C-alpha cells in the first residue's frame, strides 16, 4: 500500500506539481491530493502511472490532459478541455465541465457528474464519456470512435459529422447535426449503456436512453449529399 502525498498549489507551482507527478512510479504513491487548485490550468496533465490524484477544488483548463493510467478526481468544476486526448485511466469531475470535455480522447473513461458545456466529446477517438447532466451544442462533433452517454439533455447539432462513435441520450435532444441519425436501441446498446453507467457510478435505467449514430452519408465525396464540404 503506497503512501499519500499532498501538494498545495498555493505554495508550489503547477509545473513543480506536475514534475512530481511525472516522476512517480507505479505503486510508489497511492494517492496525491492537490490542494488550492484555484482555477489553475494543466494540473495533472500528462500523467502516465497508476496513481489516484484528488484535486480539492475548482480547476482551470486542460486538467488531466493526455492522461494515461492515472485516476484523477476533481472535487469541483473544471474549465475547458478536461481530459483532452485521454488515452487510458479515469478522470472524474464531481461538478460541471466547460467546453470540449474529453476532446479527442483515445481511451479511458471520463465522468462528468454535473453538466458539460458545448463540444463535449468533440473528435472522440475511442474514449468513453459519461455525463450525469446535460451537454451543450455540437457535442461529439466529428467523433470518430468511442461512446458518449448523456443522462440529461443534449444541445443543438448533436453528433454533427459523426464517424463511428455512438451517443446515448436519456433526455431531450434539441437537434441532431449533419449526418447524425437516431436509431433503435438494441439489447447490445442497453447492455453498453448499463455497463458505462455502472462504471460511472450513476444510477439510471438503460432503457430510458436513445441511440444516435452516423448515417454515413458524408463518408464519400459526392454532389448529392446535403452538406457543405
Amino acid at each position, binding site marked *: 500500500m503506497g503512501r499519500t502525498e499532498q501538494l498545495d498549489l498555493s505554495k508550489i507551482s*503547477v*509545473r513543480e506539481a*506536475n*514534475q512530481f507527478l*511525472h516522476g512517480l512510479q507505479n505503486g510508489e504513491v497511492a494517492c496525491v491530493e492537490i490542494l488550492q487548485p484555484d482555477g489553475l*490550468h*494543466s494540473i495533472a*496533465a*500528462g500523467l*502516465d502511472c497508476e496513481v489516484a490524484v484528488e484535486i480539492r477544488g475548482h480547476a*482551470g*483548463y*486542460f486538467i488531466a*490532459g*493526455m492522461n*494515461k493510467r492515472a485516476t484523477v478526481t476533481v472535487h469541483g468544476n473544471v474549465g*475547458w*478541455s478536461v481530459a*483532452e*486526448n485521454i*488515452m487510458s485511466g479515469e478522470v472524474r469531475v464531481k461538478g460541471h465541465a466547460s467546453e*470540449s470535455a474529453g*476532446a*479527442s480522447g*483515445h481511451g479511458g473513461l471520463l465522468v462528468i457528474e454535473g453538466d458539460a458545456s458545448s*463540444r463535449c466529446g*468533440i*473528435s472522440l*477517438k*475511442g474514449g468513453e464519456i459519461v455525463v450525469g447532466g446535460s451537454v451543450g451544442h455540437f457535442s461529439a*462533433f*466529428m467523433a*470518430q*470512435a468511442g461512446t458518449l452517454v448523456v443522462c440529461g439533455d443534449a444541445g443543438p447539432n448533436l453528433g454533427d459529422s459523426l*464517424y*463511428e462513435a455512438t451517443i446515448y441520450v436519456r433526455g431531450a435532444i434539441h437537434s441532431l447535426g449533419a449526418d447524425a441519425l437516431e436509431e433503435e436501441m438494441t439489447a447490445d446498446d442497453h447492455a453498453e449503456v448499463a455497463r458505462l453507467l455502472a462504471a460511472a457510478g450513476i444510477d439510471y435505467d438503460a432503457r430510458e436512453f436513445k441511440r444516435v449514430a452516423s448515417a454515413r452519408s*458524408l*463518408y*464519400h*465525396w*459526392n*454532389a*448529392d449529399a446535403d452538406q457543405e*464540404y
Partner: protein
Amino acid sequence: MSHPIDREESAGYDRHVLSYIRHAAASGLYDIRGMGAKRAVPSFDDLVFLTASASRYPLEGYRERCESKTVLGTRVAKQPIELDIPITIAGMSFGSLSANVKEALGRAATEVGTSTTTGDGGMTPEERESSKTLVYQCLPSRYGFNPDDLRKADAIEMVIGQGAKPGGGGMLLGQKINARVAEMRTLPEGIDQRSACRHPDWTGPDDLRIKIEELREITDWRVPIYVKMGATRVREDVKLAVKAGADVVVIDGMQGGTAATQQVFIEHAGIPTLAALPLAVQALEEMNVLGEVQLIISGGIRTGADVAKALALGADAVALGQAVLIALGCNHDTYQLHGEEIDAVEDYMRLGTAAGYCHHCHTGMCPVGITTQDAELERRLTPEVGAKRLRNYLQVLNMELTTLARACGKSNVHHLEREDLVALTIEAAAMAKVPLAGTDWIPGQT
C-alpha cells in the same frame, strides 16, 4: 467574310474559365488537387543580391568558412533545436506520403543535419527511427496524436493553418485510406477523410497560450514549441503567436503545397511568401522579440537563392515541402526499380496528365510512388534512393546559400541582411520592402 473579332478569345472567359464552368456544371463538385498555386505571383525570383565589389569585399569561395549552423527554440525550451543548415523539411503526413518516403525524408534530413516534420496522421516508427531531429505536429484533427510520441519529439509544431489552404482543414480521399492509415487515424478504411480546420480543445489566441503551456507541462518544458500559420493577416497573427508563447513562428506563404485541397483555396487564399516574410519580421521587431523568437518561412522555396533571400529578409530558417517531393522524383517521367529506369508516361496518362504537370497527389495513384498508399506504386521509390536524391538536393541548396553569403562578404549565412537585396519589379520592392534596383525607392516607404 470573317471578322477578326469572330475568333477573338475573351480575356474574362478564356478556355480555362470555360472549362471550369462546364466541369462544375457537369459534376456539381469543385476541383480538388495537390501541390501549390500555379498562378504567377511576386516571388524571391524578383529579388537579386548586391554582392561584393569595391565597396564590400567577398569571402574566398572555396577557402573561407561560412557558417550555416541554425538554432531554433531558444526562448523557453530546455533543449533548443540545433541544425547544421537552415533548411528544414516541412510537415507532410504519412497517409499523403508513403511510409518509404517518410523514411527517406528522415534519412536525408539526418545526413545533412536538419529536421523533418510529421503531418496530419501521427508519427510513424520509421520516421522517428530515421530522423535525428523530428518535429511533431499538433493538428486540428489530432489523428494519431498521443503523449508517447509527443515525448519522443524534439519539437512540437502547433498547426493553425498552412499556405495552400489557410482557414481550411485537411483532406485525404478514400483511395489513400488503407488499413494502416485508417488505424493510425482511427477511421474506417476507404472513406473520404475531411479533417477539422479548428482545434478541438482551444479556439482563440488566449486559449492557445494555455494550450501551449499544457504541452510544455506534458513534456516538462523540454522541447521548443512552434506555431505554424498560413500567410494571411501575418503581422497580427505573428504577434498573437508570440503572445501565446511560441518559441518559433512558422509562416507558410500561398505558394505552399498540399496533398489535397480545393483548387479555389490553392489559388485564391493567402498572400505570397515574399509579402508575408517582411510582415512577420516586422511583427517580431514590434514585439521586441527578434532573435528571441525564431522565424521559419515556407511556401515556394526551391533554390539556394530562395533560401539566401529568405534569410536576408529576416528568416532564421526555411521549410521545404513541394521542392522536396520534386527532388525525390515527383513529376519525373521515369522511376527507378531494381536499378533500372522505368518509363512512367502511361501512368501519368491514366491520370489525364503528363510528367511536369501532375498535381494528382490526392488520387493516391502517384506514378513515381511518392504520394501513394498503394503497395505496388510505393515500391517505385525506396527509402535508399529517395534519401540519396534528397540529401544531394539539400546539400546543393546549402552550397548555393553559402556561395551567395560569401559573395556578400558574410562568414555566417545568418548575417545576410535586407541591405544585400534589391528588387527587379515595383511589386516585389513594395512587398519585400527593399529598393527597386537602381533606385532608392521602396514603394510605400520612401
